[in-house]
Every structure is written in structure tokens, then in C-alpha cells.
């Protein structure tokens, strides 16, 4: 029973506790959810231990490897490395924040809401720590259900459409990944990620180039939908706009990372040759996504939709970084995952604050908020600046590294991606101007109290992280960098290995069952 097991299963325990909480008392579930999520967060801080210090450990930490299902051999195999560490912490940090954000705004079916929120945490942590492909898929799908309910029950007007779209979109992508996982199992005889990887590296398992490409596509589609990569992104704006604030936060901050995490964890190491071949195409989509997302964000009349499209743009950077296959690109991509989690999560949170006050997401319903609520304006401004990638705030580091990495392999793409940085300033500042600047109308002034203590409490940690991650990256970067170095090393080894499949005869041998 390692620390990681506790971090993983405590939310599940919390979920069950919440489910069996008696009805009628609305305050109890809130307190319970907060207590559980904070406890999980505090315990999860202990996970950092092995990754701090001068040497970053090779391999996985906090490994638990137990049999779950004997035949086919599906294992409960979890572990943590530099890649998953911060994503787990991001999840455990944002869950209590999401709980606090929903403290007042959720006033019907309270118990269910918090139960689903905590269940979501369980699924998300599971995704990041699974080292068994099957287990990974299980968690991947589990996360879908609570989010579906979060959007569907507590969302806004078109919540049903959004929830169903969200579910079906993701489902459509993931079923093909399931096919890929099964195929991989049939070839490798195991679902264990570590073993499959070592089989691939040692040459005991050889995929024909066609099979590799098909497998890569199956995995990639699932991840690309989740990321979401242009043109598979249209579920995102709907889901975000309709979701309650906490749902948007979890969706943007953590759920989208499932896709990018999958790319780094699975797509690249398992299918390096296919990834290499597909890279120009994917980079193209990523860059289109960056510019396209930004341009569409520019003209959104709805705040959440604007932020949602900005996510499309931001995550394009992550994909660009991953498929540059350079140290800087990968480091930047992983870092950018965290950055986006912090800053876009904060943006959704702040939009939620505004919504709680005025019950509108239309930008035109605002204007001059800075006068009645200066603190809110400042917090929003800092978050905006983080989002546009101002130096000394977190996003800059990620974006810089991504572009630096990408520039080494595809300068044209970098140039276009850098245009996205310009555009991000355009849409974010315009949003800020229209919302906070100008003269406040009478009705707005009356319903726009400044930040409450609770709101401060959730804002400050995020703000601190924005600065911390922007200025002193050494706290976070070494584990990421070390893990990426390993991934790249493996990737290059695979690249150099002569591929037997290029000749038809050999591929048939490899395909023989």
C-alpha cells in the first residue's frame, strides 16, 4: 500500500461516503468534499519527495503491481514518474479549488454534485498513474461519467446537448483506442505498459509499419479528440459554456491534459516510427489549431466560449511541442500542460465568479467591473497576462520552450505558431477591456461585490503558482526534463533500429500469428 494507492483510492472512498450521506443536509456534503479533497491534496504532496533533490530517480516511484484479472492478465499496475507527478498534483490541487468554487453556486442536488466531483478526481488521478494499458482505458472512461453528469445536471441552458456531445465525441474516439489496446495485447501478450515498451525496445515485439501506423492512429484519434486538436474540437466550446464552473475548471485544467498526457506517455514511446511519420501532419493541425482557435476566440461574444477556444489554441502549442521530438519541445509541452491547467482553470474560475454575480456569460453584459470590484479586476488581469504568455508568469516558459523546440525542426510552423501568441494578446486583452474597463452601469455596480474571503482563498494559490512556475521553474522542471530525456532517448533508439517491416516479406513474418 504505497502513498500513491492512498491518493488514488481516497477519492473513491470519499465518493462512496458522499453517496451514503443522508439526504437533506446541504452543508455536510460540502464540508466532506472539501475535507476529502484537501486531505488528498495534502497526502499527494508527499509524492513529490523522491523527485526532489539532485538526482531524479530512474523509473517509476510508488509502484504497486498486483493482479486484477488473471486471464487475460490485467494488472493493477500504477506508478509515478516525472511526467505524471505534476499532473497528479494538479488534479489534487484543483479538486479542492473546484469544491470551494462550487460552495455557494451549487444549491440543488448538492450531495450528488460533490460526489461526482470527487469521483471525477478518482478517474483523473487513475488516468495519470496507470501503467497498464487496460487500467488506463478503464480510468479514461470512468472520468467520462461524472463529467457527463456534472455538465448535464448542473449546467446551463443547452447542457443536455453539450453533455451528450461531450460523451459521444469522447466515446467515439476511445473505442478505437480500445481496439488498438486489444490488438497490442494480442501481439505482446500483456497489457502492461512497461513490458510492452521493453518488448518493443528489445525487438521482441516488432510491429509492421502499417500496423504501427494504424495503432498510432487509433490511439491518436482518442487523444486528439480529448486534447482537442483541430478539427476535432467542437465539443469543447459547448461543453465549457454549458458546464458549471467547477466542471469547466476540471475539464479545462485536467481532463484536456488526459489527451496530451496520452500523446507523451503512449503515442510517442510506443509508436515512434509512426509518430515520426505523422509528425508533419500533426504539427500542421496543431498550428492550424493555434491560429484558428485564437481567431475564433477573438470574435466570441460569450466569455466561456472565448476561453474555451483559447484552450484550443493553447493546447495546439502542447501538441506542437510533443511532435517536435526535441528536449525543449517536450519539456515545454509538459510544462505547458501544467500552465494551462493553472491559468485556464483560474480563468474559468474567475468567469464563474462573474457569473455568480451577474448571471450572464455574455461579454456585453459586463463593462466597468474594475470600478466596483478592483480586486477581482486585478486577479483577472494577472490571470489574463499569464494566459497571454507574459514573461515571469507560467505560460511564457512553456510557450517559449515549445516554440524553441519546434523551431529546430520546423521553423515555418514556429513562425505561424508565434502568430498565435500575438493573437492571444488580442482576444484576451479585448475581453479584459470589454469586461473590466469603462464605466460601470448602475445595475452592474450594485451586483458586483468584490472578492469574498472564499474567493480569495481559491485565487491566491493559483496566482502564487503562476508566478512561481514562471520565475522559479527549477522546482518543477527537473523531473519533467529527466523523464522527457528518457522518452527522447528511447524514441531515438527506436528510430535508429532498422525496421524490419519495410520489406514485405519481413512484415509478413512479423504479422504471423
Amino acid at each position, binding site marked *: 500500500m504505497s502513498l500513491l494507492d492512498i491518493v488514488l483510492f481516497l477519492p473513491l472512498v470519499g465518493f462512496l461516503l458522499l453517496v451514503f450521506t443522508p439526504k437533506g443536509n446541504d452543508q455536510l456534503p460540502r464540508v466532506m468534499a472539501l475535507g476529502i479533497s484537501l486531505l488528498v491534496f495534502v497526502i499527494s504532496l508527499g509524492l513529490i519527495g523522491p523527485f526532489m533533490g539532485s538526482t531524479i530517480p530512474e523509473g517509476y516511484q510508488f509502484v504497486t503491481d498486483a493482479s*486484477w*484479472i*488473471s*486471464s*487475460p492478465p490485467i494488472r493493477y499496475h500504477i506508478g509515478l514518474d516525472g511526467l505524471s507527478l505534476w499532473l497528479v498534483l494538479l488534479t489534487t490541487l484543483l479538486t479542492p479549488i473546484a469544491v470551494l468554487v462550487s460552495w455557494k453556486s451549487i444549491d440543488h*442536488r448538492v450531495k450528488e454534485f460533490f460526489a461526482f466531483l470527487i469521483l471525477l478526481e478518482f478517474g483523473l488521478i487513475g488516468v495519470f498513474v496507470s501503467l497498464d494499458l487496460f487500467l488506463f*482505458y*478503464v*480510468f479514461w*472512461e*470512468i472520468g*467520462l*461519467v461524472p463529467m*457527463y*453528469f456534472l455538465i*448535464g*445536471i448542473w449546467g446551463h441552458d443547452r*447542457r*443536455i446537448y453539450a*453533455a*451528450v456531445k461531450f*460523451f*459521444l465525441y469522447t*466515446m*467515439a474516439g476511445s*473505442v*478505437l483506442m*480500445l*481496439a488498438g489496446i*486489444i*490488438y497490442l*495485447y*494480442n501481439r505482446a501478450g500483456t497489457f502492461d505498459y512497461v513490458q510492452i515498451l521493453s518488448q518493443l525496445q528489445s525487438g521482441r515485439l516488432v510491429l509492421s509499419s502499417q500496423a504501427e501506423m494504424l495503432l498510432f492512429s487509433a490511439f491518436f484519434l482518442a487523444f486528439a479528440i480529448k486534447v482537442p486538436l483541430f478539427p476535432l474540437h467542437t465539443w469543447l466550446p459547448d461543453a465549457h459554456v454549458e458546464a458549471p464552473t467547477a466542471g469547466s475548471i476540471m475539464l479545462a485544467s485536467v481532463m484536456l491534459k488526459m489527451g496530451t498526457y496520452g500523446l507523451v506517455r503512449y503515442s510517442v514511446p510506443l509508436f515512434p516510427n509512426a509518430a515520426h511519420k505523422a509528425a508533419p501532419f500533426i504539427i500542421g493541425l496543431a498550428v492550424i489549431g493555434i491560429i484558428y482557435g485564437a481567431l475564433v476566440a477573438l470574435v466570441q461574444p460569450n466569455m466561456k466560449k472565448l476561453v474555451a477556444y483559447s484552450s484550443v489554441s493553447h493546447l495546439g502549442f502542447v501538441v506542437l511541442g510533443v511532435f517536435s521530438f526535441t528536449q525543449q519541445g517536450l519539456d515545454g509541452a509538459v510544462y505547458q500542460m501544467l500552465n494551462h491547467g493553472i491559468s485556464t482553470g483560474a480563468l474559468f474560475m474567475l468567469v464563474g465568479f462573474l457569473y455568480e454575480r451577474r448571471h450572464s456569460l455574455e461579454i456585453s453584459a459586463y463593462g466597468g467591473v474594475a470600478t466596483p470590484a478592483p480586486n477581482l479586476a486585478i486577479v483577472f488581469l494577472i490571470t489574463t497576462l499569464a494566459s497571454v504568455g507574459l514573461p515571469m508568469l507560467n505560460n511564457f516558459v512553456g510557450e517559449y520552450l515549445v516554440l524553441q523546440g519546434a523551431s529546430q525542426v520546423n521553423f515555418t510552423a514556429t513562425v505561424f505558431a508565434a502568430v498565435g501568441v500575438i493573437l492571444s494578446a488580442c482576444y484576451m486583452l479585448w475581453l479584459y477591456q470589454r469586461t473590466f474597463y469603462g464605466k460601470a452601469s448602475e445595475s452592474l455596480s450594485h451586483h458586483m461585490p468584490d472578492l469574498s474571503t472564499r474567493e480569495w482563498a481559491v485565487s491566491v494559490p493559483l496566482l502564487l503558482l503562476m508566478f512561481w512556475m514562471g520565475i522559479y521553474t527549477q522546482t518543477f522542471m527537473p523531473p519533467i526534463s529527466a523523464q522527457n530525456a528518457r522518452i527522447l532517448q528511447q524514441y531515438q533508439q527506436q528510430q535508429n533500429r532498422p525496421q524490419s517491416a519495410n520489406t514485405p516479406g519481413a512484415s509478413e513474418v512479423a504479422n504471423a*500469428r
Partner: protein
Amino acid sequence: MPANAFPTSAEYLRFLPEIILTLGGVVIMLLEAVFTNDDQRKIFGPLSIVALFAALLASISAAGDPGAAFSNMLVIDGFASFFRALVIGIGVLAILGSTGYLRQERMPGGEYHALILFSILGQCVMVSANELIMIFIGLEISSIASYVLAGYLRDDPRNNESALKYFLLGSFATAFLLYGVAWIYGLTGSTNLDQIRGALQTSAAPLVMAGAAAAFMFVGFGFKISAAPFQIWAPDVYQGAPAPVSGFLSVGPKAAAFAILLRVFMTAFGPIADRWEPMVWGCALATMMVGNFAALQQSNIKRMLAYSSIAHAGYVLVAVTAHSETGSAAAMFYLAAYAFTNLGAFAVVTYFSRKGEKYVAIDDFAGLSQRQPAMAAMLTIFLLSLIGVPLTAGFFGKFYIFKAALDANLTWLTVLGLLNSAVAAYYYLRLLVVMYFKDPGDSVENLEPAGLSLQIAVYASAFGTLLLGIFPGWVLDIATKSALK
């Protein structure tokens, strides 16, 4: 002529479950005259469950001593035992799920329980038969009981129509089945599955005719399992039949029919697998698509579940297409998983529809989650299992099936099947949407809490669904051990 004209005691033991079920049914028929209607409902439910449990024990003990019985008419192997246990379990859940319904419709309980027992008896005979003649008789016992069950509320025109359609079309399809049997008999000189297999393996075997015979027989089996294009009866019959009966029909006879389909096609027609595989491939795909796509348009929940049941038959047909050991095991697991899930779902529908099945439109479920959160949560589990979300039985069922299909190099069928399951998510989600996202309407106003036996049925199904979803290993191990070659 076999030497052992007189059966041994071991053979009787192997046939004990059927004997117990027969006795149970007969005792109920006899006692019926003694009790009033109210008492009947109270007594016969537990009585039949006792009989079923006895039969279950008998079949488990029979599984310990596998072998043929009665001049090779029956073969009690793992496969047969698995399905015997499954259909008996289905019987238990079906009876638990229908007690309240009978009370509310004020129907006598005697014949109902006897018919269920006889139907299960027929299914037991089917799954353990090793001879076409036994298969035919078992099928007829099960079917005739089912026809009557479908029309059990004889004053209800929906029930009449359901029974009539089921009966006429069922007999029609049976005629095709028999025609195929006649041919295969003429070609191989036997109706014993092993001997047919042996005859077909000889070099002189007339394979084209055998294929045609297999096709005729597939019409009959395909009808029972509601495979496209023989699925058309299912929606009407399931919609018209009493809700608990629909639940029973969608799993019991179907599981047994799949068992004999697997046994006949993998054993007897094993040598001509390359002939029927493409045909079953097409049927599997067509079945999935017809079921899923047509379900998108349904507004009646029983009808929707009927289409869903068609679609699920399509998934199992994928496993049949694979015609491998893993495929057979996957089909077995899937049918078990589906039994729990669908019986549970129908139990909730039974509970919800109330007297005269007034509330069976999907929109009637609006706000169920707020009036009966526990029931709604259970239905959610069943629906998620039907969608195939992990940690439910349905997910592992699909997983094993598609794994077997990929093993058998059925890549495209796998991909199309998986995409189908994504399409299917839509209509299940619609029910979730209505239950959870819509405000309660009139239909949930006067909803009484569920009766005890129904609650047992629902919770047991949910438990089974989750158990098979979280620890599928033990059932799969049994299935793998007892799968056909």
C-alpha cells in the same frame, strides 16, 4: 443401436436439473387448484425459486461429472453446465422481478411460474443437447412456454398481438430450421452433432448442400437470437409482452439459442466454418447496425430495449463469427453479463411502468432520479453497462468479444462494432438525460417504493453487473475452461 439401452444412474444425475424443474412445474400446476389467487402469488414465487436453486445445485453437481447421457442425446460438458446455470439464474431473477407485476395486474401466479419453469427446462435441454432432435424439442418447449408467457395477460390486446406475432413467426422460422435439419440428416445420415461433424470432415461430403442446410438452420436460430434480418419480430413482441416477460425473453431464450447456435455451428458445422463465417460476419454487422440505429428513434422504452437487445445479439454474433475458443468464452461471458444487465433494466422498467404498463415512454422517466434516486442509480448502472463503460459487466463483455474478434483477424468487424457501440451510447444516454437532467413530471408523482422481491432482483442484478465489471476474472475463467474447442 447403442448397447446401453437402459440409462445408468449417472445419466439420470446428469439429467437431474431438468427432472427437478419438471417436478417443480408439475407440483405448482397441481397445487394451483388448492390455493386462491392471492396465495398463489405468495407461495409459488418462493417455491419456484426453491426449485430453481435445487436445479442449480443439481446442475453444478452434474458439472462435476461431465459426460454424455441417454444414448448421446445429451452431453453435459462445461459449456452445457455454464448455460444451464445461467438460464436457471435468469429464471430466479425473472421470477423475483415479476412478483410485484403479477400482483398489480391481479394475475394468477400458478401457471405463470410453471410456464417459467418449463421454459427454463426447455432451455436447459437445449443447451445440453447433443442431438438435433433434442435441440428441436427443447427449443419447442422453451418457445411454446414463451409464446404463452408473451400473451399471458390474455385480456390485453397488446399481449395477444405479441403472442400471435411471436407464435406465427416463430413457427414459421422453426419450419425453416426443420427443413435444414432434414437436409443435414439426408446428407450425413445422422442428427447427432458429432456424427454430422465426422461426416462433413470426410472428403466426399457434399459441402454445398451442407452449407445450405446450415443456412436454413441459421434462419431458425437467427430468429430466436433476433439476428438481422430475422430480428423484426423482436421489437413488437417485447413491446407487447408483459414487462417482466420481455425481460425474460430478451435474455433466457436468447442465451439458450446462442448456446445451441454456438454448439451446432462450432461442432457440427465446424468443418465448413469458412462457408458460414462470411455470412455470420454480415449478419453480425447488420444486427448491430439495425439494432443501434433503429433504437435511436424509439420513444417507448420497452421497444428501445428491444432494439438494444437486437444490437447486443449482434455483438455476440461477432464472437460467433470468430468461432474460436476465446470467441466462445467471450460469448458466454457476454451473455452472462447481458443477462444481469438487461434483467435489471427490465426490472426497473417493470417497477416503473405500473398497472397496465401506463408509463413506458422514455419521457415518462423524467426526474426519476429525484423521486427514486436508488432505483435511478441502479438503472444508471445498467445503462452504463449496456453502453459499455468500464467497471460494468457490459464493458468487459464487449472487451472480450472484440478481443476474440481481433484474435481471429476480424479487424474491420471489430472497428465497425466498436463504432456501433459508440452510436449506441446515444440512445442510452437519452434515458440518462431524461432521468437526471429533466424535471420530474406527472409520471413520477404517484410512484410507490418498489416491493421487496423486485428490489432484490434489481439489487442482485446491479451487484452482478458490477461484480462482473470489477472482477470479471472468475466468470471468465469458468467460461474459458468450458468454452467449445
